[in-house]
């Protein structure tokens, strides 16, 4: 042990801290420990050490016999192993210790930090408390001063109040004094006026008037006074009477209302279920009494008293005596109370009965009495069910509608079905409309055909007319009539020609529209032309589908020229149509067209 402690000390940390290679190196360095010479010494030293460490003493024996100083290897190795084990254990332990010390050091650090923080906080709060203390002290000082102030103010208020009071008293006193003075002055003034006999004070009337009521004025006597009193009291009395009457009326009204209320109360409550126990008295009472009191009776014990009260109330309702009033109010109050309790009981009954099991029970128990109630319940249940069904139905409908609305292109089976459902009606309506429309169209077509026929005929007529005119003109030219007269003659001829053309027109009854229309054109054309001109215009309207109103309104302004253009158009139209069938009249119509255009421009 004593040997080279420094070495030992130096060695230990390295041994502990270093690992195997380090120990190897240390072995190399410290190889001086055991040499060939000092083997036994070393062995003994080791043994001593081993001993001291608690290993078996004879662990390492030097084989003294051998010079080479061989070591008894087995125990040496054993001890070595043990040493190594021990070393490992201690190292492990050391590591643990180190970790622990690290942990504890960190904890310590943490604690120190918290400690310092807490210290800071403590400091701060200490400062704060001191500040608050200071503030409190100041506030208390303030309070003290304020209290002083208040005291002085209070004193002042009191003083002022007393001053006010004294002032008020003084004022009232002064006012009174002043008033007295003024009255005195007034008195004096009055006196003066009376004494002075004011000359100016006068009434100047031309002649005196009669009294408004025509009577003469009366002397002031006791009788008059009594009369006045009487009249006054009479008017007062009449006023009171009026008021009394009004009150009576009101009272009667109120009573009526009360009675009605009672009656209605009774009528409302009479069909309500009665307790079977009370039914034994039913046969005794007449129907009226039954209706009056049966709903108000709730138990056999109370029924006697109820009967009394009910009678009382019924009587008191009729009489309006003073002494009955209290009874009346009492009875009403009582009845009201009973009504309330009755209603409450009814409510509770309903609650009980509503459960199905109790319905059964009551059915069994009460039998006849509860039948209506049961029926009622059933009915209610049925209705509720129905309502529920209806609600469901509505909801599904709503849902479907929503679906349809949300996804119109949503191509589902149900959606299509729904669509179908919703559009079916519309389809039908459309079909109906379509049918009507078709009919209308057919009618129109028929009419158009008629018109075309008429137009063709008109074209023929026109042609005839043109021919006629041409021939006439030819004749004119041939006869060498003066050119100036031409216009007049032609006009007359036109009339003539139209008159002739109107004749075949009249023969066609297939155009009723133009006949009705013809009235409107009378003002603008000669009577002969009436039949011919509007018919073409109408034709045009019908063919071009121009509304009548516009044509008539427009026509009024520039009727003549427009109509003529109509004629041209219609002629053209008819010409085109007629050309297919009546090719022969082509050149003639062209000629007439040009002539008409000339007349237009």
């Amino acid at each position, binding site marked *: 042990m004593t040997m080279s402690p420094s070495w030992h000390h130096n060695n230990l940390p390295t041994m502990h801290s270093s690992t195997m290679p380090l120990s190897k190196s240390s072995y190399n360095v410290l190889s001086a420990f055991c040499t060939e010479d000092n083997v036994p010494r070393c062995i003994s030293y080791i043994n001593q050490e081993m001993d001291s460490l608690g290993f078996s003493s004879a662990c390492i024996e030097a084989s003294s016999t051998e010079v080479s100083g061989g070591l008894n290897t087995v125990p040496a190795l054993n001890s070595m192993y043990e040493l190594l084990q021990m070393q490992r254990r201690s190292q492990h332990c050391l590591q643990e210790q180190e970790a622990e010390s690290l942990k504890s050091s960190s904890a310590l650090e943490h604690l120190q930090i918290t400690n310092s923080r807490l210290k800071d906080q403590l400091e701060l709060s200490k400062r704060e408390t001191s500040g608050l203390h200071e503030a409190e002290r100041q506030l208390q000082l303030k309070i003290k001063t304020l209290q002083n102030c208040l005291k002085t103010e209070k004193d002042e208020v009191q003083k002022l109040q007393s001053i006010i009071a004294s002032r008020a008293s003084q004022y009232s006193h002064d*006012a*009174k004094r002043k*008033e*007295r003075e*003024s*009255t005195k002055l*007034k008195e004096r*003034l*009055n006196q003066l*006026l009376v004494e002075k006999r*004011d*000359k*100016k*004070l*006068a*009434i*100047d*009337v*031309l*002649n*005196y*008037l*009669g*009294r*408004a*009521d025509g009577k003469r*004025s*009366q002397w*002031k006597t006791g009788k*008059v*006074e009594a009369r*006045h*009193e009487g*009249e*006054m*009291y009479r*008017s*007062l009395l009449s*006023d009171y009477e*009026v*008021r009394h009457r009004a*009150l009576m009326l009101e009272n009667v009204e109120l009573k009526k209302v009360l009675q009605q209320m009672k009656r209605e109360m009774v009528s409302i409550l009479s069909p309500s279920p009665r307790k079977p126990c009370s039914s034994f008295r039913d046969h005794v009472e007449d129907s009226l009494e039954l209706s009056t009191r049966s709903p108000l009776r709730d138990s056999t014990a109370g029924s006697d008293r109820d009967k009394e009260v009910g009678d009382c109330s019924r009587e008191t309702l009729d009489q309006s005596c003073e002494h009955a009033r209290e009874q009346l109010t009492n009875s009403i109050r009582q009845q009201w109370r009973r009504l309330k309790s009755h209603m409450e009981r009814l409510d509770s009954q309903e609650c009980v009965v509503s459960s199905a099991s109790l319905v059964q029970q009551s059915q069994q128990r009460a039998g006849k009495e509860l039948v209506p109630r049961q029926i009622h319940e059933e009915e209610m249940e049925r209705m509720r069910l129905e309502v529920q069904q209806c609600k469901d139905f509505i909801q599904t409908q709503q849902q479907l509608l929503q679906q349809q609305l949300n996804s119109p292109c949503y191509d589902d089976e149900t959606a299509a079905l729904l669509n179908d459902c919703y559009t079916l009606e519309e389809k039908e309506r459309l079909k109906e409309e379509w049918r009507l429309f078709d009919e209308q169209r057919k009618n129109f077509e028929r009419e158009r055909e008629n018109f075309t026929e008429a137009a063709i005929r008109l074209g023929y007529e026109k042609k005839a007319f043109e021919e006629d005119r041409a021939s006439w003109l030819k004749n004119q030219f041939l006869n060498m009539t003066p050119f100036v007269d031409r216009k007049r003659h032609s006009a007359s001829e036109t009339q003539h020609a139209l008159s002739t053309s109107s004749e075949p027109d009249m023969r066609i009854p297939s155009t009723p529209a133009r006949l009705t229309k013809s009235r409107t054109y009378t003002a603008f054309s000669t009577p002969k032309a009436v039949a011919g001109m509007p018919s073409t215009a109408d034709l045009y309207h019908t063919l071009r589908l121009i509304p009548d109103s516009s044509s008539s309104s427009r026509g009024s302004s520039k009727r003549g020229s427009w109509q003529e253009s109509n004629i041209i158009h219609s002629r053209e139209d008819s010409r085109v149509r007629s050309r297919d069938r009546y090719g022969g009249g082509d050149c003639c119509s062209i000629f007439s067209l040009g002539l008409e255009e000339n007349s237009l421009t």
Partner: protein
Amino acid sequence: MNFSEVFKQSNQLCRVSPDGKYLATCVQYRLVVRDVNTLQILHLYTCLDQIVHMEWSSDSLFILCAMYKRGLVQVWSLEQPDWYCKIDEGSIGLVSSRWSPDGRHILNTTEFHLRVTVWSLCTKAVSYIKYPKACQKGIDFSRDGCYMALAERRDCRDYVSVFVCDDWHLLRHFETETQDLAGVEWSPNGCVLAVWDSCLEYKVLLYSLDGRLLSTFSAYEWSLGIKSLAWSPSSQFLAIGSYDGKVRILNHITWKKVTEFDHPASINNTKAVSTLSNEYMSGAFHLPYPVQRHLKNCLAYSLSEWHEICPLPVQVPVVKPDLDRANPKVGVSSMAFSSDNRYLATKNDNMACVVWVWDMQRLGLLAVLEQTSAVRCFQWDPRRPRLALCTGNAKLYLWSPAGCVSVQVPAEGGFQVQSVTWHCSGDSLILLGKEQLCLCYMESRGNNYFVIKFAMNNHLDV
């Protein structure tokens, strides 16, 4: 609605005779009597000085003209234009003159309220009533003209004397429990006399005709009290308007408070309708007189745009009064019941632009009529429940339960309506300007076309 031409007038002196046939106007010192229907001058009287006060006698036969400065009263007869009567109060002076209900006596109050002189036109007799009190309403005649109540002051105490007007017999004389009596007013049926204290104390005393104290009512203490008082025509209600901006309604059986109408600055009563007369829109409707005549149908149409029904809640313009000065503009200063007792119109002085109409059946607020300027005067039609009001501009405003309307007075030179008075038939209105007057004829035939179909009920349900 038609308007007459404009006439001259001075001192706002224009009165319709009690029988409704004549219209008397004063122009300086001249008194002009016209026929109400034709407006032709029937009589012209010339007084000695500028007329200050003018009054018809109850039988519409005489007109009293008072010239206070001269202490003179002149009476003219309609039946005998030559007849004259001149009363000279002499050196004592005159502050007030009025007819007695029989139309044969004249009550003159002398200066300093020294006495009331009763002049008889029948006998030339003169009698004096001493110690009349100078107050808000010191004399009141009962509606039937039988009794006169007179407030008196003797030995610093208030008294009330009840006289029989027939022969000026003192019927009752009693002391009232008032500090400083401010007024007396008979109920319309003449059986109850309401006596109220000055504004320093809220106190109403109700006396029976025979001097018994029926009841006393006081709503509060230590604050300014009653400002105005009004009986309902049926004598059923007594409305008391006070400086706290509230109207308290007493009933005639127990003389207890039935209800209390407040005049809040913000109205959120769902049952009330607030209308605002809109000046800017009304400018679009300005028509000369001849056109106005033929505008019956158009009028009803275009007038409906003049008024705006405001959505609730409504803020009413409030003027903060200067409480340090005398007679502060606070409190309910004027109240009037409609002739059918159905409605009560009130005006609170610090909301001068607003007239409040209360429903007396429902005892609640019915309408709030907000004008653009301060309301000068309002009066109910004596026959129908409709209210006429003016604000000192060139318009006349009318309200009825069916709606409201404003009409421009078609007069040249800016006719500013200062006050309105109904003719007793309710068919026409007399509008008084500063120096002019004009009559406004209601079309009473058929329904009132001026009444706009506001679909009021819809608004009531809002």
